[in-house]
């Protein structure tokens, strides 16, 4: 198959997935049996993206131990919970990651 056909088909499939429910939705409040599960979508999907990235990252050029990332993520959870600050979560998380990487390096 021509690479351009592959890209067009893959792009179209992705786009239609993103458009699906947006195109279908009509005005008015969605019924409770729809609204309740939707309320859990951000929590569930983002958590499903976070934990594998902490334990076993992909798309990365480096290969190091998981422990510094686990410590950094744990610190980030605490900071996000206590402060609700995105910036502070980022700073503390990366600080713990770099510190733990340096200290735990073989």
């Amino acid at each position, binding site marked *: 198959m021509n690479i351009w056909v592959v890209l067009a088909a893959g792009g179209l499939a992705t786009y239609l997935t993103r458009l699906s429910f947006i195109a279908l939705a009509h005005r008015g409040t969605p019924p409770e049996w729809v609204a309740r599960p939707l309320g859990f979508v951000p929590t569930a999907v983002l958590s499903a993206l976070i934990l594998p990235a902490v334990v076993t990252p992909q*798309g990365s050029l480096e290969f190091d131990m998981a422990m510094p990332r686990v410590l950094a993520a744990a610190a980030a959870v605490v900071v996000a919970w206590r402060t609700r600050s995105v910036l502070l979560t980022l700073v503390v998380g990366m600080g713990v990651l770099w510190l733990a990487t340096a200290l735990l390096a073989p």
Partner: protein
Amino acid sequence: MPLQPGVSDNGTRGISPRVVRGPPYAAADARGEFLHGVAAELPLLLGVVPFGMIYGVLAARAGLTRMTAQAASALVFAGSSQFVMTQLVAGAASGLVIVLSIAAINARHALYSASVAPYLAHLSAAWKALLAYLLTDEAYAVSIGHLQADGPRAKRHFFLLGAGLTLWASWQVSTAFGLFIGARLPSAWSLEFTLPLMFIALVVPQVKDRAGLVAALLAGGVAVAAQGMPLGLGVLLAAMVGILAGTALGKRPA
């Protein structure tokens, strides 16, 4: 970059009277919403830009031409599926397998679509078509909390537009950097780890009760356990398990 909602470029309009909704989202007009969306997306670029550059490098190594690799960032516009695509191209997989892989990995976007749909229902077809194109992990993550918040909602879609366009531009540019210049950022900095950290910062405030906590922990645990599943379907399965558990356990965390 000055972020002053309600102030026009030439300064003639002055400060909009329709503001003051309290921090962190102070503006209810279109321009203010847009700029807040841009500002909310900026911290994520710390992780997105290295990610896009690495994609560009790997795509070039996999034998994709610069034009096709860049076109993938514009047409598919979904990082993890583009990484898998380069692996499959390098491994000479059939076109059908590549298309199905992209579709499966991006199936989670249907959940984002359903999640934002009630807040975009009042918009024209053209707006819906545009915002659907921009509905990535990162744009969704920073926008959904704002879309759900109380207050006037008529112009909230400009927030998603600002976040989405910011991510789109940085993804195209970082892809080009990776393709033409190569990834020069030291990998020891682990800048790609800022993405999961950002998601943590955005998810934790969403967890307000036991049902939310169970949904988060179950989804995360299943995602790790199901990593062996083909085509990245583990993420979709994990999200569904988390959503069902949360729904069964408690009230909607709104």
